[in-house]
Structure formats: structure tokens, C-alpha cells
């Protein structure tokens, strides 16, 4: 493209052309960002919709495989294979969620059960400075209050939650940290801060 000319009114250095090029570039970037945002929104909506029937499917298949004594031999094998495929699909769904990568701390911080539960062998391998990392943010708040000597009722009031919910958090913390009582928790929290 020949733009630079002695006589022409538009050159490669023409401020008007430069502005127009910048505008085109910006427009393309905005369009790209909008497309990416729409794709993310669509993906999130699809994942949510797919996770519902997938949950139901997984529960039914696990029930079938678990109660295999009631099923003919051929159906037992079919149920096992179907469950394997459903579990594979679950793995794909979790892998597609970048936040759910196995190494992500966030993935370990949600759901108190198998998704974030640390086994005793894994627990012993956890380095000291990561001791409290296995707790959720809410559990850390509860632990802080316990270490300050707050009773269940008082702690619950401070966090604006029910006493029973506070007790559940306390039970989870004690189980995760293998603590026997509040004194153990205080010791662990202090040693972790040092």
C-alpha cells in the first residue's frame, strides 16, 4: 500500500489515519473482549445446566453399582461401565473449570467432604507453614475466635451465624487439624504463626 506521497493528502504519518487505525484496533479489542466474555458466560451457564443432570446420573449409577446383589450379572457390568463414563464426564467438567484444578488452593477450600478433606497421611505431609491453609476462610475466622477464648455462643454472635453452625465449623477444624480440644487448637494456631 502506497500512502506516502508528496502530493497525496493522506500519508502513513497522517494523524487522522493514525487515529483511525487506533480506533479500529480498539474496536477489535473491545469486540474480542465482548466475545470472550459472552463465551465465558455461555460456558458457565452450560456447566451449571450440565452439572444438574450429571449429579442425578452419578447418584443413580452409584446406587446401582452399590446394590449389585439385586442386579443380573450382565446389568452389573453395564452399570459399572456407565458409572465409569459418568465419572469421566465429571472429571472433564472439573478440569474445564480452571479454578478447580487439583493444585488450586481454592479447590480444596470448598465443600468439607471429599473435595477438600485432607487424609491423615496427606495431613502429616503438609508443611508446617501450610497447616492452616487447609481451613476455609470462614474456618480461619472461627479458629481465630476460639484462640481468643470465645465460647460457641459468643463466637457465633460475632460472626453473625447460628451457634450450631459455629459448632459445625469448630468440629470441622478439630477434625482437619486432628485437635482434641480448644487448647490443642490454640497451640497449633500459635505454632503456625511463628
Amino acid at each position, binding site marked *: 500500500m502506497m500512502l506516502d506521497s508528496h502530493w497525496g493528502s493522506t500519508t502513513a504519518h497522517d494523524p487522522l489515519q493514525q487515529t483511525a487505525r487506533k480506533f479500529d484496533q480498539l474496536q477489535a479489542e473491545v469486540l474480542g473482549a465482548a466475545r470472550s466474555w459472552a463465551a465465558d458466560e455461555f460456558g458457565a451457564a452450560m456447566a451449571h445446566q450440565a452439572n444438574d443432570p450429571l449429579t*442425578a446420573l452419578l447418584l443413580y449409577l452409584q446406587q446401582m453399582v452399590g446394590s449389585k446383589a439385586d442386579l443380573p450379572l450382565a446389568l452389573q457390568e453395564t452399570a459399572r461401565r456407565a458409572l465409569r463414563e459418568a465419572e469421566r464426564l465429571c472429571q472433564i467438567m472439573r478440569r474445564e473449570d480452571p479454578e478447580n484444578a487439583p493444585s488450586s488452593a481454592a479447590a480444596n477450600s470448598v465443600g468439607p*467432604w471429599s473435595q477438600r478433606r485432607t487424609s491423615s497421611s496427606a495431613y502429616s505431609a503438609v508443611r508446617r507453614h501450610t497447616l492452616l491453609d487447609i481451613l476455609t476462610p470462614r474456618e480461619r475466622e472461627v479458629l481465630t475466635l476460639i484462640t481468643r477464648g470465645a465460647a460457641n455462643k459468643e463466637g457465633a454472635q460475632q460472626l453473625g451465624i447460628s451457634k450450631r453452625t459455629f459448632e459445625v465449623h469448630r468440629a470441622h477444624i478439630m477434625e482437619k487439624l486432628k485437635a482434641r480440644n480448644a487448647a490443642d487448637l490454640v497451640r497449633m494456631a500459635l505454632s503456625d504463626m511463628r
Partner: protein
Amino acid sequence: MSHILIIDNDRSVGAAMEYMLRNAGHTCAVGSDAQAGLEALDKSGFDLAFVDMVMPDIDGLAAIKRIHEKKPDLLIVAMTGYRLHSAAALSADLLEAAEAAGAACGLRKPFSQKELLSAANLVNVLESANQTASAHAAQRAFT
């Protein structure tokens, strides 16, 4: 065994959960939206409620608040297939937000039968933790 309320607008999830929980010996009621769930709370005394975090009528976090206004001591297990409110949202994880709003714990969909039954056992976990704490306190009193 516990008396459990399930609130999920996806009927297939509610039905599958009810089936599994009844097979495990629990008693259940299912509400297909937050409003139905809140109405069910008036009719029966539940030990535990599973609450979906994304429902068409009420936001899950608001639902937790409304449930606790009615039944402050009810244990709530939040459920969701979403991580955030929306992909573009900068808010915290939805299950962490649910925990901050008062849920005792969260389950991420798709969850397994084992995870479901562990969560349903929450009431027993709490009771046994309280008993252990009492036993340790008694032991300390004697030593």
C-alpha cells in the same frame, strides 16, 4: 437418622437426592424453589437443609438468610455447579460466600453419593463432636 429438606429448582437433582437419602434411612421433603422450601419449613421441623445456590426466584445467599430468619439453628448445606455468580463476576467463590452467609458447608455439583451421605450425616458429626468435647472436659476434671 435426620429429617432433611432439599431445595433445588432442578427436579431431577431433587428426586435423585431424595431417593438416595431415603435409601440411607433419612426422611425428606423436596421444594422445587426457594419459596416452596421456605413454606415447607413452616410445616415440619427439619434437622438439615440442602439449598441450591442458583435458583430463579431467590438468590441462594438470600435464601440462606431467609431460612435462618425462620429457623436460626437449622444446619444448611449449600450446593452449586457454579463457582461464581457469573463468569464475569469478581465476587468470592459462591460456596465460600454461602459459608460466610451462614451455611455449615458446601457441595459442588456434580457430587457423589458418598459426599451426599457424608453431608447428610452432619447432624451426627456435630453430636459426636460435642460428646467428645464433653468427654475430654470430664476427663480433665478428674485429672
